């Protein structure tokens, strides 16, 4: 909303005649009452030197066909000016003359100069050159009644002005006009709000003018018939005023309705009555199949929910939004029908949104204009101006009433004001503020004031709204920063906020972020939007078994969460996977530099799951919401040649995932992952592993599928590895329970196993561990000194941390193709004694025998070498 300082100056009269505060101070004052000033623009500076120039003579330019040499009187002397405009008035006519030395708003400083051999002393200006209007078809011709030498700014208000751009919150429709803004400022500045004089013509009743068939949607309709209109340009002051406020002057009738709009905040509409069938209007709902063409030449298919202003036959305006193409007032119109109305706000908004039309009119109606005295005043103001500036006399009128909002009676307790604000506003001041805002206050009970808000403030509905008004005008600068509430207390217990896992998950999320960052990874935050085409790349080429839908960790298209109104350039689906966002970030880095990229994100993905069996007060809503599981994704990418000393490879990232989980507090193991597991379709089929904790799958790690490397346009032979954790699947972190330190030395034995390469090392290690666990206690046979209570067990050897360690993976000479020799080292110790070679050897052999038996179910040739 643009507000003119010059206009405010007219409305806000100071008893002592002082001018308004300077622009900065005024701007602060406006902001302080909750009407935030977002911009201040000074316009028209320098134009005080523009004067009325009277044409004395016009002669053709001797050397140019299109130019003319004008002699004009600037009030003190006669000057020669060369002018190119075709519309210089005949001698005696007045023009706007800019003398030598003046700087035009466009930045040009005028000087005396020769134009094709004729000396020109200044410039005859158009509206556009002075930036007081859009007209540049010719020079500005001024009324002949004005005397030469008069300053233009003395004849026309607002030539020099300051325009404030206000951000008006949606609760303040009254501040969408100068009078509303002035009303707030009057109290704040101690000035008097003086509204322009209102016409009070005697209007013969003419009930047939207006029929309201939709009283539930049209609360009030003032319709006036006018005759004798002379449609033409508006006077300069009106054109300047509208132009300053960003409105294009059109003709006097339209300009008047726009002026009243900017003054009272009340949208008005003028119909050419001659074009209305039967010269009357019917306010009704649109009929099925009806359409209309609006002023901007768009044809709208109307809905039965749309309110229209029709004539006896068809819609002529979309009520409260926009007029029809043919009902507008054009030059030549003689009879008019002026509309001033109050329409029910919410349906106006529905209609405006449905037809994608947001107009100055709908903007105000959907916020709620005055349905009381203000509406009548705006109508009177327009009638007066139409008669004065367009010669249109009101010959009849009718006011039709429908349902208007009830007027609330609000009880305001001064004690409540004090407790809500936490400061004391004296009662007298509070009442003065309310009175200034046109709130009627009956304070016969000093503890319970009965208040009646004005019809232009539909936002004042409850006691607290009045308290806000008092606060708003009184200001918050005096508000003490004093806490009366009890000091710190935290609450524990379930949050009930449907955070997956609740508050523990929240702490875990932060710990996991720390654990990953500690591995040298950089945290990224990716936007949660995705393209279906991109998400599809995460899925198996061959659709998995449909029965598996809803089970696997990757959601298929039928489970994606779609937006109904995506933004151009952003995906229309919420991400169901973290990898695409991380690959985008990696690709951006690869395009910018040649360093290895090690990044991670901990964030939610979104998909439809089984309706949660939520309980509690939010359950009904939670059941219709999608799942938002938390994931952690780690991506390593190194384009060829990128090297920071740490290799970017699978074992590296696999180890990192294990280390990060250990940092987090969980011991994880790697397990083989099936090449055709649909949940891991984003990974290379042969370079992948599952991560598991306490026997449960919690994530995966592997090489990024080569198709994805290609799809993201990463250079060929880029090393790319991705690890992912399902954070919600991580078990609680067990407390640290210390193992006693061994007091006796351990010993170790190696074994080399000949195995098919398909058998993963993790399978071999698991088979050995399982075999060891299944063995009967052998020590009692070998030890007579209570060894059965302290058996030899697999345990980390003195040189390492793991009881079973893969030492070497040998393929080549001596090993058949397709097989490998896996050298493993097993550690043994007893808790409270030294162990003998014989018992260790016996145990070692038994463990290997058991493991091989197990492994032969995968590989018949499995054997010890």
């Amino acid at each position, binding site marked *: 909303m643009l507000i003119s300082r010059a206009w405010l100056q007219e409305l806000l009269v100071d008893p002592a005649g002082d001018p308004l505060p300077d622009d900065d101070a005024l701007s602060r004052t406006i902001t302080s009452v909750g009407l935030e000033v977002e911009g201040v623009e000074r316009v028209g500076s320098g134009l005080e030197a523009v004067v009325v120039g009277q044409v004395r003579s016009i002669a053709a330019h001797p050397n140019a066909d299109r130019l003319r040499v004008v002699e004009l009187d600037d009030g003190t002397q006669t000057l020669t000016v060369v002018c190119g405009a075709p519309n210089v008035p005949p001698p005696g006519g007045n023009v706007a003359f800019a003398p030598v030395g003046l700087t035009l708003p466009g930045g040009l400083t005028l000087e005396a100069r020769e134009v094709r051999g004729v000396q020109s002393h200044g410039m005859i200006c158009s509206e556009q050159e002075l930036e007081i209007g859009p007209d540049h078809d010719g020079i500005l011709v001024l009324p002949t009644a004005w005397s030469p030498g008069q300053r233009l700014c003395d004849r026309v208000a607002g030539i020099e002005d300051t325009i404030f751009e206000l951000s008006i919150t949606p609760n303040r429709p009254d501040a969408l006009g100068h009078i509303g803004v002035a009303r707030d400022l009057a109290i704040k500045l101690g000035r008097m709000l003086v509204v322009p004089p209102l016409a009070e013509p005697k209007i013969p009743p003419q009930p047939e003018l207006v029929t309201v068939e939709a009283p539930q949607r049209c609360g009030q309709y003032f319709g006036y018939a006018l005759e004798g209109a002379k449609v033409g340009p508006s006077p300069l002051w009106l054109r300047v005023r509208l132009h300053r406020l960003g409105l294009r002057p059109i003709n006097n009738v339209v300009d008047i309705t726009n002026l009243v709009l900017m003054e009272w905040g009340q949208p008005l509409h003028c119909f050419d009555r001659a074009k209305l069938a039967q010269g009357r209007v019917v306010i009704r709902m649109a009929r099925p199949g009806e359409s209309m063409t609006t002023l901007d030449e768009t044809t709208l298919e109307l809905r039965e929910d749309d309110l229209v202003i029709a004539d006896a036959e068809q819609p002529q305006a979309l009520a409260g939004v926009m007029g029809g193409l043919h009902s507008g007032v054009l030059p030549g119109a003689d009879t008019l029908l002026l509309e001033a109305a109050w329409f029910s706000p919410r349906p106006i908004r529905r209609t405006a949104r449905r037809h994608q039309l947001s107009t100055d009119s709908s903007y105000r109606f959907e916020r709620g204009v005055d349905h009381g005295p203000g509406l009548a005043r705006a109508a009177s103001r327009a009638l007066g101006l139409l008669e004065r500036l367009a010669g249109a006399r009101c010959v009849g009128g009718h006011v039709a009433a429908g349902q208007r909002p009830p007027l609330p009676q609000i009880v305001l307790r001064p004690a409540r004001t004090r407790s809500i604000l936490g400061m004391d506003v004296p009662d007298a001041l509070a009442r003065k503020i309310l009175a200034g805002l046109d709130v009627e206050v009956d304070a016969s009970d000093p503890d319970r004031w009965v208040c009646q808000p004005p019809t232009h403030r539909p936002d004042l509905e409850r006691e607290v709204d009045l308290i806000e008004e008092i606060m708003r005008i009184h200001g918050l600068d005096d508000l003490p920063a004093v806490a009366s509430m009890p000091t710190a207390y935290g609450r524990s217990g379930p949050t009930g906020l449907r955070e997956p896992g609740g508050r523990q998950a929240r702490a875990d999320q932060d710990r996991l972020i720390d654990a990953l960052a500690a591995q040298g990874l950089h945290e990224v935050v990716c936007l949660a939007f995705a393209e279906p085409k991109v998400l599809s790349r995460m899925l198996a080429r061959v659709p998995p078994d449909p029965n598996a839908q809803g089970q696997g960790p990757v959601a298929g298209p039928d489970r994606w969460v779609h937006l109904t109104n995506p933004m151009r350039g*952003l995906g229309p689906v919420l991400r169901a996977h973290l990898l695409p966002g991380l690959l985008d970030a990696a690709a951006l880095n690869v395009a910018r530099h040649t360093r290895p990229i090690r990044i991670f994100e901990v964030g939610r993905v979104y998909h*439809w799951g089984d309706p949660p069996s939520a309980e509690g007060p939010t359950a009904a809503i939670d059941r219709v919401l999608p799942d938002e599981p938390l994931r952690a994704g780690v991506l390593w990418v190194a384009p060829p040649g990128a090297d920071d000393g740490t290799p970017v490879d699978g074992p590296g990232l696999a180890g990192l995932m294990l280390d990060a989980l250990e940092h987090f507090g969980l011991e994880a193991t790697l397990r083989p992952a099936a090449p055709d597991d649909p949940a891991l379709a984003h990974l290379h089929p042969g370079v992948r592993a599952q991560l598991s904790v306490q026997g449960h799958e919690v994530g995966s790690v592997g090489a990024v599928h080569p198709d994805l490397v290609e799809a993201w346009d990463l250079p060929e032979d880029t090393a790319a590895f991705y690890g992912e954790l399902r954070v919600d699947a991580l078990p609680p972190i067990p407390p640290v329970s210390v193992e006693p330190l061994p007091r006796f030395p351990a010993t170790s034995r190696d074994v080399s196993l000949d195995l098919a390469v398909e058998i993963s090392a993790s399978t071999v290690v698991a088979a050995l561990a399982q075999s060891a666990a299944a063995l009967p206690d052998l020590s009692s046979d070998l030890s007579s000194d209570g060894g059965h209570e302290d058996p030899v067990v697999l345990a980390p050897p003195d040189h390492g941390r793991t009881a079973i360690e893969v030492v070497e993976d040998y393929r080549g000479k001596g090993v058949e193709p397709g097989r490998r020799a896996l050298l493993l080292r097993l550690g043994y110790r007893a808790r409270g004694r030294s162990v003998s070679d014989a018992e260790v050897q016996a145990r070692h052999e038994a463990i290997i025998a058991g493991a091989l038996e197990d492994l032969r179910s995968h590989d018949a040739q499995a054997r010890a070498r």
Partner: protein
Amino acid sequence: MSSIRPYLEDILPLLPADFDDKAVDEFEVAVSEATDEAQLYAVQVKFLGKKGQITRIRKHMGTLAPDQRKAFGQAFNKLKDGFEQHLQARREALEAEARARRLARRDDLTTRPRRRPPGSLHPITRTRRRLEIVFRQMGYDVVDGPHVEHEKYNFDDLNFLEDHPARDMQDTFFARGRGDAPASSNGGPSGAPDESNPGTSPPLVLRTHTSPVQIRAMLTRPPPIRLVAPGTVFRRDDDATHSPMFHQIEGLCIDRGVGMADLKATLYRFLSAFFGADLEVRLRPSYFPFVEPGAEFDMQCPFCRGSGCSVCKGSGWIELGGSGMVHPAVLEAVQIDPEVYTGWAFGFGIDRMAMLLHRINHLRLMFEGDIRFLEQFSC
């Protein structure tokens, strides 16, 4: 090294005339040629061990008269001690040499330090955590809720009435419900679902603010309530200063007798703790549907302390966010009696705060993931 000959002086006269002192010379040479402890030990065994060549001299005692034997014993001991001292001297010399050699090593550690650089925490994470720590210390719970939210919690219960222009204050992403058919371009001006044909699907939105967490909290726990809700929010806005996804933190306090002055005091305490300095707080009346009275809050610029700088664009103040007293309609929506309890709420942008703290000039940097930006926030 001194000769070992003097140690022989006493014993030589007592030895047979044909005594061959070749072993003595050999010992002297062997000691001087030994270059480490192991060689020296071998020399010691060879010459001074039980059957060593020097030790063997002792057997000559048997050939002597008894009155000479005592003198021989003393002379032999002098010889043996002397030889052992000689050996020890050589040993110490070798150790000194070895130590000197170790100390002579010169490595330039500045040449190529082997680094294992730390990773980094995103500035949003860093800022969110700092905020959470301050509020936890002030006695506030930290909670969050779903990102895809029901309109009822995102708007209706927060006093954003249906078809009210207040809803335009936050340009909203709408989400299709479970199993809804794909979009059939019947959206409204901003693509909002067509209200006249809502179908059966629930009106889901990407939450436009963290305020639905207020509603969820008030529905699930009785007052008094003190919480902050940091989290991800979404608005249909994408330009140099707006991201369609960003982060907010919201504070809520519901208790008996809570007023605007408490709000201002809390904001003041929080900002002072967060920035470690007394920073003034300024409230300006404004409008947010879920608070009444509502106010924007500004803080004194922490960089210039109000005297004006480039960060605050010379004003001395930085606009932070919105605040106000929880609207009675909101309390009623969650069955809290506004006559008994009042409360305040505030909210501001975490991303904006992070940009302010770290002087990040372009919002774009926050979400594109350039490691050269991220590694500046190493942890």
